[in-house]
């Protein structure tokens, strides 16, 4: 059965104008960017290095021993370098030395166990399904990735970082200047450092964690391994530690002028009769893990969930 759609007489001029406009716009759209379609064989444990300035970089792990690049090269871009040497595949957007260049969107598929390294200026980076080590860096782009237990390093100046963990142990390092970072279901070792960004990390179980901030707030929620070492320092940012499950830890918490609030153990004490400092030392359970928190003026909260 055929279906015929006819425009009502009242609307025919409008439809005709719309079609004419669409037809006039199509050639422009075709010149807006150059489609990319490249493919090469790759070692499943090789390295894929990607560099893009502005736009997006989306990396997906797949079960083929090939690297495929699709997407669109921004208008005015000089070229896309796609090279392979030994186990390293390099994808690099090369810009001319002028400013009227449009964004480039790269969609890269890599062998799932590849080591992936991505550098951008403002391009957002998204990674999914990659089970190898990841090294993601951007000046102001947003970083969004998944952790499968392999090492992940994320560095930005002002871009935000978002990591979805799998509960498998690994090493995650997050460094920002002003970008915020959020992570869920991490496990193992977590290191976070920021100047004014807020770090909010959910950890299944941590064995080693070190968080540092100047004025950003630090929040860690999770459980401590039996021999865990947790070290948190902040100048004026607040620190919040929410412990999940049974905790056997030795707590050493001190703040020069911030408040200390704890939901278990004795009350914090003044360190000096004439100075504002407070400290809280407490052994919970067998005290096998160690928690150390220091702030200048940031408030500290340690509670159990």
């Amino acid at each position, binding site marked *: 059965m055929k279906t015929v759609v006819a425009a009502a007489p009242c609307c025919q001029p409008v439809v005709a104008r719309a079609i004419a406009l669409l037809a006039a716009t199509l050639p422009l759209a075709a010149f807006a960017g150059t489609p990319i379609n490249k493919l090469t064989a790759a070692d499943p444990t090789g390295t894929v290095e990607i560099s893009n*300035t*502005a736009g997006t970089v989306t990396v997906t792990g797949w079960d083929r021993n090939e690297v495929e690049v699709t997407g669109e090269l921004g208008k005015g871009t000089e070229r896309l370098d796609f090279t392979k040497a030994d186990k390293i595949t390099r994808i690099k957007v090369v810009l001319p030395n*002028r400013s009227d260049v449009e964004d480039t969107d790269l969609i890269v598929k890599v062998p799932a166990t590849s080591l992936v390294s991505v550098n951008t200026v403002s391009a957002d980076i998204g990674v999914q399904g990659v089970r190898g080590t990841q090294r993601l860096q951007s000046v102001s782009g947003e970083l969004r990735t998944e952790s499968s237990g392999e090492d992940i390093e994320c560095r930005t100046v002002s871009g935000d970082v978002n990591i979805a963990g799998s509960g498998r142990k690994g090493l995650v390092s997050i460094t920002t200047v002003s970008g915020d970072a959020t992570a869920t279901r991490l496990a193992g070792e977590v290191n976070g450092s920021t*100047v004014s960004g807020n770090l909010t990390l959910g950890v299944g179980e941590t064995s080693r964690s070190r968080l540092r901030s100047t004025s950003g707030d630090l929040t860690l929620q999770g459980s401590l391994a039996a021999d865990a070492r947790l070290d948190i320092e902040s100048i004026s940012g607040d620190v919040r530690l929410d412990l999940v499950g049974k905790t056997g830890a030795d707590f050493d918490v001190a703040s020069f002028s911030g408040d200390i609030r704890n939901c278990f153990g004795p009350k914090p004490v003044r360190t000096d009769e004439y100075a504002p400092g407070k400290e809280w030392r407490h052994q919970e359970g067998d005290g096998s893990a160690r928690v150390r928190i*220091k702030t*200048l*003026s940031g408030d500290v909260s340690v509670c159990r969930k």
Partner: protein
Amino acid sequence: MTQDERTLQGAVARIDSQLRELPREIEPGRDLWSGIAARIDERAAPAPASEPRHSAWFWQAAAAVALVAASSLLTATLLDRDRPAGQAVVTAAPSNQVATSQDAVGMPAAFGPAGTLDPEYLAARKQLTQMLDQRIGTLPPSARAKLEFNLGEMRRAADEINAALAAQPGDPLLEELLLKTYQDELAVLSNVSQLTGSLENAAASPAEKRMQL
């Protein structure tokens, strides 16, 4: 292997060779113990009240700062050397050039009212700051402003701690936090230098329209 790596490897091999040639034991030319005992007795005597005393960890931490400074500088320098000659970062030199990182940092390099920082640390910081100054122009203005604000934030933190140390000289918590602040400053300078250094073609990009800082 690059020329730089070959040079570095050669230098390491030479140092190894020189180390192997060193004698395993050296007999002192005279009995040193009497002098050491006298020095121990001197140190056991109470220090004058006017000189702030630092705990043992302080000096260990100070050594750590020097080590961090050296390693930050080495890393940043090596990364800089790895850049092929033809790939020098283009400095954008925008018309509304803001203050350099040197201006933004200007961190008081002192521990409390009477202290001074290790010259090695100061030299490393100066070099890292200069390196960042060369590259900061490659950052989009909004990112640069954000960075400079945050370097200023660290300077303000150090000011605040130094002021507190003036009121409470020798406070171990304050000294520790101040050292960490200096370490963090070096780490930020080093990180941003590396980040900008790894991004050729960054300067003349249309990145501004996407900046969400």
